[in-house]
């Protein structure tokens, strides 16, 4: 069994407190590389002690944003403030931020100790304090026995820990993590995610992580900014982004989603009625964040786990019913994924938690099934 260590995490939402000033502020930041705009007039606030994730596909500008904070790139326009101080013109070696590199960038000609002590030596710290801090860092990442080894004598997971220890050693105001767990295998990655969270709470630092792995972002961070083509598509907590996606892009990028296109035929009390010709059905759902007008082309988005699948027809008059036949089944152990083919030919996914130990599931291929969901389970997203 895994034992719980460290303090219990409590609700933490400084972004909801209007009296707090942001700790890091990207102010109308634009970065161009020649003709290519990597970051496009982006404004973003990150609060002290926050674990903030920049999430997006490769080329969305998330790494560029982080490198501008570290000082390796200069914004073409706009400015970056750290604790109220403008960072423009301050070189990377004078910024109170440290970065953990994707490749780890461990100095191959130095030992583990030498790597961790490197930043402290640059600060001009005295030898005994350096030794104390290095020992502290080694115990934090559980590498005491490997102090005298060179990086090439370590495994991938150990190198990752050395890189983390080295970037934390100077106690930076902000730690930047560039795809920190990308090179680890799945199990180790999950363990390390929780360790990162513990370390962040323990040291009380602000962490900014760049990742393309949505599970990682959702696990570790307090808030996530989903990026696309140099802009922020949505900022919010993991559950906000998952349950209330602001755009189709976010809905599609995070998790799995069914999207049904149609035309809005009525809007009343925040509930829109959508008629879809492609699946020949009328759907009622919450309107979400956008302004939804009658006659608008819109999409209905619903997560597969919120779709109930049944062999029996619901009572007549029940809203939000689709019927079709089971096209494909994916058994994943904890859940099963049913891909249901509707009369019009489109596929809707529904997942069911496998709560019993039956090997033969009641619903099987080619069964005629009914898909239903409550009115608040899905969301209307404008095109």
């Amino acid at each position, binding site marked *: 069994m895994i034992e719980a260590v460290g303090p219990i995490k409590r609700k933490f939402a400084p972004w909801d407190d209007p009296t707090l000033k942001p700790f890091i502020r990207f102010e109308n930041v634009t970065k161009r590389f020649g003709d290519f705009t990597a970051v496009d007039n982006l404004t973003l606030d990150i609060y002290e002690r926050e674990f903030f994730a920049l999430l997006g596909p490769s080329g969305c500008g998330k790494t560029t944003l982080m490198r501008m904070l570290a000082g390796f790139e200069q914004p073409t326009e706009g400015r970056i403030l750290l604790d109220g101080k403008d960072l423009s013109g301050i*070189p990377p070696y*004078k910024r109170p931020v440290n*970065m953990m590199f994707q490749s780890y960038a461990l100095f191959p*000609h130095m030992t583990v100790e030498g790597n961790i002590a*490197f930043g402290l030596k*640059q*600060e001009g710290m005295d030898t005994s304090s350096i030794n104390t801090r290095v020992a502290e860092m080694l115990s934090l990442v559980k590498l005491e026995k490997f102090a005298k080894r060179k990086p090439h004598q370590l495994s991938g997971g150990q190198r990752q820990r050395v890189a983390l220890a080295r*970037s934390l050693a100077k106690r930076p105001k902000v730690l930047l993590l560039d795809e920190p767990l990308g090179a680890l295998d799945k199990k180790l990655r999950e363990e390390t995610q929780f360790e990162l969270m513990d370390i962040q709470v323990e040291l009380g630092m602000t962490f900014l992580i760049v990742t393309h792995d949505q599970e990682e972002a959702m696990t570790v961070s307090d808030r996530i900014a989903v990026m696309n083509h140099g802009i922020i598509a949505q900022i919010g907590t993991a559950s906000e982004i998952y349950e209330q996606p602001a755009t189709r892009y976010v809905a599609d990028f995070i998790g799995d989603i069914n999207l049904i296109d149609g035309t809005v035929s009525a809007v009343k009390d925040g509930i829109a009625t959508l008629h879809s010709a492609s699946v020949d059905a009328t759907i009622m759902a919450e309107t979400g964040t956008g302004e939804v007008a009658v006659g608008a082309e819109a999409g209905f988005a619903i997560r597969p786990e919120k779709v109930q699948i049944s062999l029996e027809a619901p009572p007549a008059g029940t809203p939000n019913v689709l019927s079709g036949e089971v096209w494909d089944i994916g058994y994943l152990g904890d859940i099963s994924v049913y891909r249901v083919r509707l009369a019009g030919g489109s596929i809707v996914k529904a997942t069911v938690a496998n709560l019993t130990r039956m090997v033969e599931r009641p619903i099987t291929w080619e069964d005629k099934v009914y898909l239903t969901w409550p009115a608040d389970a899905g969301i209307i997203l404008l095109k």
Partner: protein
Amino acid sequence: MNKTTSWFNVTSLVLGFAFLYVPILILVVYSFNASKLVTVWGGFSSRWYVELLHDEAIIDAAWVTIRVGILSASFATVLGTMAALVLDRYNKFHGRALFSGMVYAPLVMPEVITGLSLLLLFVAVGFDRGFWTVVIAHTTLTMCFVAVVVQSRLVTLDRSLEEAALDLGCPPVKTFFLITLPLILPGVVAGWMLAFTLSLDDLVIASFNTGPGATTLPIKIYSMVRLGVTPEINAISTILISVIAVGVIVASVISHRSQVEKEKAERAVFLAG
């Protein structure tokens, strides 16, 4: 790979190596000839080596050659490393293609032209030809070789290592000496050894640019040969070949050893799981 040795392969190998090394082998063997006649074997002896030690002109020339080699190799290493850094780092500056072409051009430039152009330069600026003109000429000749060797090392260097050092508070110049230089050192040392050996065996450029009191060993040997080949020349040539062979071998061992060691350690970690 085909492991069976066919008569064809063996023959090609023997012929190829014979073509390359028989002349040198004959030279080495005859340097131990007791007879004064170069082409007649008169038994084993090391007398020509002993005689060399008493020939002050040759000792002087050797000393000049070594000093020229060390100085020019050192200058060439500094300049060549700087050129390699620029070529590796600033890939978008104006005229980069021209610059890199100009750095590598002396590699294929006929030595006669390099020598002659330097001679004209020294005459034009009124620089008396002698020891230092040979040093400068050899620096010019060898720095492009250093640039090539160092650049090949820089290409494999992960730039994020330098960024990590900057990120940890190390200013750029210090980063170069603490991180970059130690990591490219095998390339720099190999470049120095290469420059040194090139300087040792250069005749053409040195003879254009030398002056009174700055006779290098190749010039000395060449002038001696014009009066007839003596076993003494064989002896000194053998020594020169040995020095150059050792230099080249050391240079290649240095540049390969670190790589091999790294791979070995990585394999050990992998096998240990």
